[in-house]
């Protein structure tokens, strides 16, 4: 039971999350914590599990690649554009945010 009143920053972030979820073309939104448990997800459980596992390995690899090239650098964001959709990943210190957006049909 959360008894703390959410701070203004938390409220803002929640609103931003809401806006992202209702953005044009977005059909999936997942937040995973670093120990593997997913905090928020708008897609079904099994897909989320596999997605997070795979994305996490990729994210770690990308991050180590960036940091090996220059230790002072760090990975902030990466996108995977596929035929059907685009996967946007934002790795963080504690969490990993994944958004699935449909490709723009030009």
């Amino acid at each position, binding site marked *: 039971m959360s008894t703390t009143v959410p701070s203004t920053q938390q409220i803002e972030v929640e609103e*931003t999350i809401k806006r992202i979820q209702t953005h044009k*073309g977005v059909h999936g939104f997942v937040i995973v914590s670093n120990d593997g448990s997913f*905090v928020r997800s708008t897609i079904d459980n099994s897909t989320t599990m596999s997605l997070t596992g795979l994305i996490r*390995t990729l994210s*770690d690899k990308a991050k180590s690649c960036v940091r090996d090239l220059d230790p002072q650098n760090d990975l902030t964001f990466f996108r995977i554009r596929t035929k059907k959709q685009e996967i946007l990943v*934002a790795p963080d210190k504690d969490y990993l945010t994944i958004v699935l957006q449909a490709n723009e049909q030009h």
Partner: protein
Amino acid sequence: MTSTLRSAASVRTGISAGGRSGGQASGVTRKTAPTNRSTRGLPKLIENDQDVTPKRLVDPEQYYNKVKDSVLSNDASSNPSETTYSTAQPQVFSATKSLMGHSHGGAANSHGTDAESFPSEHDADQLAQSVATHAVEEDESLISMDGETPQSLLTLSETDTIFVLSIDSCIVANDATDLEDIKKQNERYVELCKSRQGSDVFSDRGMNTFNNTVKNKEVQCERIQSQSREVYASVADMYDSERGESKIILGKSTHDKQTIDEPLSRTDMTRSVGSGIDKSHGTRLSEQSIDETMRKSTMAKSTNEQVEDPQSFDSSKIAASVFIMERILNSNTNQVKQAIYRGLTPLTDREEKTIAYSGLTLDKLFAYSAEITNNKNVSALTWNHQNSDLLAVGYGPFEYNDQRNGLVCCWCLKNQDFPERFYHTPSAVTTVAFSVKFPSLLAVGLFDGTVNVYNVQNNIDKALLDTEEVPGKHTAPVWQLYWLGVEKSRDDDTGEVLMSVSTDGRVTQWLLRKGFESNDYMKLKRILSKQTIQRRDNSKEVKIPKSENLLYRQSGGLCFDVCPDDSTIYLCGTEEGLIHRCSLANNEQYLDTYAGHSGPIYRLAWSPLAKGVFLSSSADWTVSLWTIDRYQPCITFTSRKKPVFDICWSPKSATMFCCANEEAVEVWDISRNTLEPIDIILTTHPYIFTSITYAPNSECVLAGTNLGSVVVYNLKNLPAPTKANELMEIIKQQTHQALIPEDPTVKAAAAIKPKENVPISNNK
């Protein structure tokens, strides 16, 4: 050499014997002090009220005396080891001891080459005694401990290495004095060695160390769990650990607990799974894979933990990621539009099916609008001086009726659906201005006359500074704000002041010292120009003396603009349609007055490229172009029968400007056509345009509507930008044309130096 053999053997036994010094000592003690022999000699080990003293394999007590006798009576030449070996083992035990003692005592004469004879009788005694003395010290401690406690602690340890025999080689220099002696000695030794073989003096003996009986002892301990962990330290990890931020975690306590609690099979499973995963990259890759598998297996267990997780999730931690995510999403959706805004050719892979425009066109790109800005009238637009993508928009109705809370939003190109910052104000916003010197300060003028200053670095609704309490506060809506750079008069001045104009007739300077301090630049006195009087009273010719004003009242100021070339001169437009040119230094009199409009002046704008030329827009449906030396407008632009709310010069082209009247956004190019705008965007929806501005870094025009959206139009097919002199040419043309049908007195009037307060009338 036999002696060495013997001593070697004894060394070995010596060490082992030393290890059992406790037992030895007791044995020896018995020998020297047989009367003291009692049960307390042996240290007892008592555990759980039971005597678990390990029993001796052999009881030396019984055999010692026997052995001693046999030892003493032994022939000198007989092989000691053989004798002892044939007899019972305890003999060995003590005999070898005696040998050890002997070697101790005989260590002094073990150097040298002579054969060593078997210890003589008296030596044996000697050695026994030496052993005794050697061991007595240790025993004394034992005795004392025995007396106090029933159980003594036995510490077994290795003694120091005892060098029984150490024959170091000695190196002598070639020019030593006794070199010959040494050489002879060496030769003699070599001879001896050679002759050793068949000589009677020497006899070979073999030696054998005995393997003492072994006692097996079993120990059982807890099962030692082991888990393998692998970590790959990459360059980044080494950098991190140097700085003390090492993220290499070899084992988390919670997970260790889990593995230990789990049955054996599960641990094996995780280990095997872990080994199967690629561990070649990433510091915590293997960690996490293991963690995930462990998590999977313990999912059932930790369901109660997961319930807690959503509550303990602090969303402010991912604020940064979410922020970036939103931007990227926006750029995905709107990439084409944003590219056009930036002036880049858009990236499309479909064929362009656009209509080819021949002339200048306005193409709608996107609109900045969000839910919070719905149905709010856009009253002000201004750009940030440092970040030319940042647009501040003020929302608030122009009229007094239906006053609601106002809103100021800062929009950025990267997000069109939600403003970067939004501040709610207690009353409607009429004007906004970004500071030049401190680009993060935003001054907002409100309908109730207060001026608020916000810091756009954060999103706090409370203003940084406001003029609520300041005595010099405006009592009527503030219609325009301007940050003016001035010289510092005091050290704590910021070098910048805020200028404001309001309907209460004052043009005020605000100094941002500890709070707001105000000075009035000018009180706008209401004057009736002769021209206007003449127009009213056509019949009479009323001569009005220069110094006297008919009605000494303040007139409301609606707008002003500071001359870009000379920042002490500014223009101020009033409600009566007069434009006054004033100086900052003079706060009593106007330098000039320009009368030409018949309705309140909504906007004044100096031309950024041409000197001394300005535009004015008014509610009388016209836009007028003036030069400072003419008191009549040079050119007047009318196109619609609606008040023109806002005008903006093009920053690049001297003859282009755009204006927003209620129905349309119009782009005018004076060099082409002075009667009609060269392009129009008509409002198709039930909204009206209320404000307009050019984008500083793009070929776009932004127009605000009264429904809360700011529409961005891209100017396509722009003609080549025109220069200032072209504008002047056109003006000259126009004025000459205009002049001809009029009275020649106008020329004379134009020639008079603009120093007087009284405007020049037509008929003088």
